[in-house]
């Protein structure tokens, strides 16, 4: 594609633009995270530490989601949920290591910190190595800066609202999880896993401690993953990073 100047964009320029666009769009979720975290009982500092240190949206939403249903006594279940949801970042790290790793331990730690759905997806969507590197770093940094700024904003808004239920923030949390799940519902297998996990978690809610139904639903993934029931042979159901 040629730009207005008549010169074609280089792959690195394309990667930079994609990284900025994806980064800004993703960072906007931070507002909803900040508000929901405060609604779940965290203070503003605790909310900000999560976005700075944990920095992986799915795990952050899961942690405050479980704390919202069970309070501090559901702490172990909340931590377990966050770890299970964060486990995919290890898989992303293994794929990104040959592309952005191996430049000294400080750069490796920075790369690991910024390894999330979006930075991995933008990097792997590029054609050559230089563009992949640029895509990873631009996306990761834009999301990191934006996500932390919007987290503060959301936490302040949540703090001002007070009775968050009257404003429907509990429904907003469910809608946020649905937004994270939606792009992954592309195959019969993922739809079956999602349906079975939702039914199992709802059925277990009256009989086990808060937070445990979510962890128990992980068994559905293990069963489908081990047997590849309803799966496509040789194809990975890897959502947006395929």
């Amino acid at each position, binding site marked *: 594609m040629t730009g207005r100047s008549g010169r074609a964009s280089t792959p690195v320029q394309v990667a930079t633009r994609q990284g900025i666009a994806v980064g800004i769009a993703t960072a906007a979720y931070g507002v909803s995270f900040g508000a929901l975290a405060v609604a779940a009982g965290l203070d503003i500092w605790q909310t900000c530490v999560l976005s700075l240190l944990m920095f992986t949206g799915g795990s952050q939403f899961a942690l405050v989601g479980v704390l919202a249903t069970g309070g501090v006594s559901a702490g172990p279940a909340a931590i377990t949920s966050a770890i299970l949801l964060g486990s995919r970042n290890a898989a992303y790290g293994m794929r990104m290591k040959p592309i952005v790793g191996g430049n000294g331990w400080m750069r490796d730690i920075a790369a690991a910190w910024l390894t999330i759905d979006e930075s991995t997806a933008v990097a792997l969507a590029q054609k050559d190595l230089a563009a992949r590197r640029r895509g990873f770093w631009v996306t990761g940094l834009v999301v990191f800066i934006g996500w932390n700024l919007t987290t503060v904003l959301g936490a302040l808004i949540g703090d001002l609202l007070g009775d968050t239920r009257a404003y*429907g923030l509990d429904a907003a949390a469910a809608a946020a999880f649905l937004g994270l799940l939606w792009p992954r519902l592309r195959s019969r297998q993922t739809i079956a896993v999602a349906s079975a996990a939702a039914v199992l978690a709802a059925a277990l809610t009256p009989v086990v401690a808060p937070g445990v139904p*979510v962890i128990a639903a992980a068994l559905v993934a293990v069963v489908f993953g081990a047997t590849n029931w309803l799966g496509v042979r040789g194809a990975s159901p890897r959502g947006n990073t395929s």
Partner: protein
Amino acid sequence: MTMWQIILLASIACAAIKLAGYAVPPHWLEKPTAARTADLLTVALLAALIAVQTLGAGQQLVLDARVPALVVAAGLYWLRVPFLVVVIAAALVAAALRATTGMG
């Protein structure tokens, strides 16, 4: 456990998972079963969180304003409406139903 302990433990664990991806040789990921299970784990946990967040009230299951709000959210995602707009719309639906109908 205090809230701070929960926050710090979970954050350190999630950061360690990210570092582990760069520290270990990528052998196990080459097995399709491990890669598939890691992907499906995300789907299962998100679906379970939706169910609990929509129907749960402590250890009870209740049908309240969250259910119509989630139905509206699903419809908007289907129409490819952006994430933040959908989340705000879901909150507004639940808030409006609670304010006008006395729904829980």
